[in-house]
């Protein structure tokens, strides 16, 4: 029972950085831009958020600083691909490496320092319920925020006019431009939003999830976020499922080991990746639907000629 609560309750927090970053990347990709610099944006945000939180003892300020630094780095990427028309894959990788390097440089003096994590929610009665209490009513505020943002983004993309415009631009920016839409400005906004989400994700990773600063602490979570978008076939609900599944299965491995159940630990270490891919591939097996969901102009630069 303790193991079950540990897995279910812990999965929420474990999944949050990947979920936030993946939701941001979803919006960017829906606008037709492939931004592979998530890992770097998360890293730089993690460093800045940690430094600010350490200095001010205020997680809100720290997370905000993370958001701002994520946006700033994403604007570098935006300049490369929207103004200089650089190849999106190459620009994303380059900016990502820049972010990782900068985060290591900035964080040098902070190596191994710790801060107190964000307090978990505590609602009288509800938080004390067995299993449900810690899982649903005992999380920190960012976990709920991630949920809310997922719903908000789904609503924005599929139920608002602005979301429809963004998706049209992602399908065919030339046609969108001919219709009087603004592909470059929209893509810029989408990239900045993706940067903000990656920044929040990175800040959460360094100040809440693991309240210790260390170089390379993002440890590949940005790449998992990119993968979640693809394997979730650009659908918000599937990305949520994928992220929580990944979080739960990675903790399940630790819980089973602590229980002393004799499953080889290497198998448990690769299970989150394998299972997440398998589940997402199965639920999105329909090839036609994948093609419908994937933005047609993903990765292609566009500049209005008139």
């Amino acid at each position, binding site marked *: 029972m*303790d*193991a079950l*609560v*540990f897995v279910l309750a*812990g999965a929420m927090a*474990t999944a949050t950085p990947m979920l936030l970053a993946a939701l941001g990347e979803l919006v960017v990709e829906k606008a037709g831009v492939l931004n592979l610099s998530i890992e770097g944006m998360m890293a730089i945000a993690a460093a800045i958020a940690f430094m600010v939180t350490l200095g001010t003892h205020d997680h809100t300020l720290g997370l905000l600083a993370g958001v701002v630094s994520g946006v700033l780095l994403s604007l570098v990427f935006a300049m490369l691909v929207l103004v200089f028309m650089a190849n999106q894959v190459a620009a994303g990788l380059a900016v990502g*490496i820049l972010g*990782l*390097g900068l985060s*290591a*440089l900035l964080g*040098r003096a902070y*190596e*191994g*320092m*710790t801060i*107190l*994590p964000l307090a978990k929610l505590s609602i009288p009665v509800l938080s004390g319920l067995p299993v449900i209490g810690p899982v649903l009513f005992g999380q920190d505020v960012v976990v709920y925020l991630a949920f809310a943002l997922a719903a908000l983004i789904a609503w924005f993309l599929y139920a608002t006019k602005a979301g429809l415009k963004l998706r049209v631009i992602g399908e065919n920016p030339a046609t969108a431009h001919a219709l009087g839409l603004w592909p470059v400005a929209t893509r810029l906004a989408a990239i900045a939003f993706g940067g903000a989400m990656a920044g929040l994700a990175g800040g959460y*990773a360094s100040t809440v*999830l*693991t*309240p*210790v600063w*260390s*170089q*390379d*602490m993002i*440890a590949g979570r940005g790449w998992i976020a990119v993968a979640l978008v693809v394997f979730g076939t650009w659908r918000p609900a599937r990305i949520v499922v994928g992220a929580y599944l990944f979080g739960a299965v*990675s*903790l399940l491995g*630790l*819980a089973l*080991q*602590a*229980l*002393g159940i*004799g499953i*080889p*630990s*290497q198998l448990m*270490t690769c299970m989150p990746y394998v299972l997440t891919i398998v589940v997402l591939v199965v639920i999105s097996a329909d090839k036609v639907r994948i093609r419908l969901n994937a933005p047609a102009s993903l990765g292609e630069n566009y500049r209005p000629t008139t």
Partner: protein
Amino acid sequence: MTNWMKRILVTGTMLAGLVTAAHADPFRIGYLIPNPVGDVGWSHELDAGAKAIQEHFGDKVEVQTVNSLGEGPDATRVMDKMAADGFNMLILGSFGYQQDGLKLAKRYPNLSVVHIGGYLNAKNFSTLAPRHYEAAYLCGMAAGMVTKSETLGVIAAFPLPEVLNIMNAYVLGAQSTNQSLKPVKVIWLNSWFDPAKEKASAESLASQGSDVIYSLFPGTPAPVAVAEQLGVYATVTHSDNTKYAPTKHLCAGQLNFGPVLIDKVQQAMDKAFKGDDVFAGVKEGTIAVAGLNNDLSADQKAQILATQDQMRAGTFNPFTGPIASNDGKDAVPAGTALDDAAIKSMKFLVKGIDTTIPN
């Protein structure tokens, strides 16, 4: 990864080398550290060793420390360049530097190389390994004394022989002070570095009743800091982590590379460098318990320190039989003790550890 930054560091090191070469020829030592130097941990202790050398020899030596190199081509390039620049000695602080270091030692017969944590030797290539397991046994004694749930948890990276002998010594130490210990729980991280996973592992062990958590070769102080928050004791390798768990730090194996390295540097300066295999423990002052918790009574602390004194005198080996392995075999027969070679190549877990060796 952070290649550009390393390049700047490396270039800086080389420039510093050029500038100082004009001085009256100090004995030049290149000192490679794999990771960033934090306040605790492997790289921090290596850095402290470099400082100890510089302090001991003063102007006579010049120690150039380069950290955050990782174990890839960057490190190889730095050590190649140092050797080509006429450094007298290299001290290599990571297992992964072994092959490239050995090649260099063969190419530059006048270069003295000390490699920390490996198993190969040559005439001018010496191996240094700390006897982590000695401190592990002592910390295990402390763990056995304080546990109320009789359940200990261990977080370990990979099942290397060194990790196994540390884990075994820890459990033997705990069993020596507590006869009613339940099977020890182990989480294998299968990763050298993932702070979030380290933290979650500590939480997982604590949620299932472990009230002492041993962070064996941690990448970060995360498990120790989490133990403090969860209200369970933490024991740890490499460094005293008391600042991360002011009330719950039970015991640490504190490394001190200074004395043995000063010895090796002196040998090299006297042109009497031995390419030997140095397995240094409590006796050589390379490791000792530190940060013992005040919840341990004076008697308990005295008992731990008395065992440490026996190790210093060379009269106590934790791997003295009879020791049964956890798959029911007779690992160390009664009346015998494992020698250094057997300890270094350990492949079994002692009875009372609730895990299998992943392979």
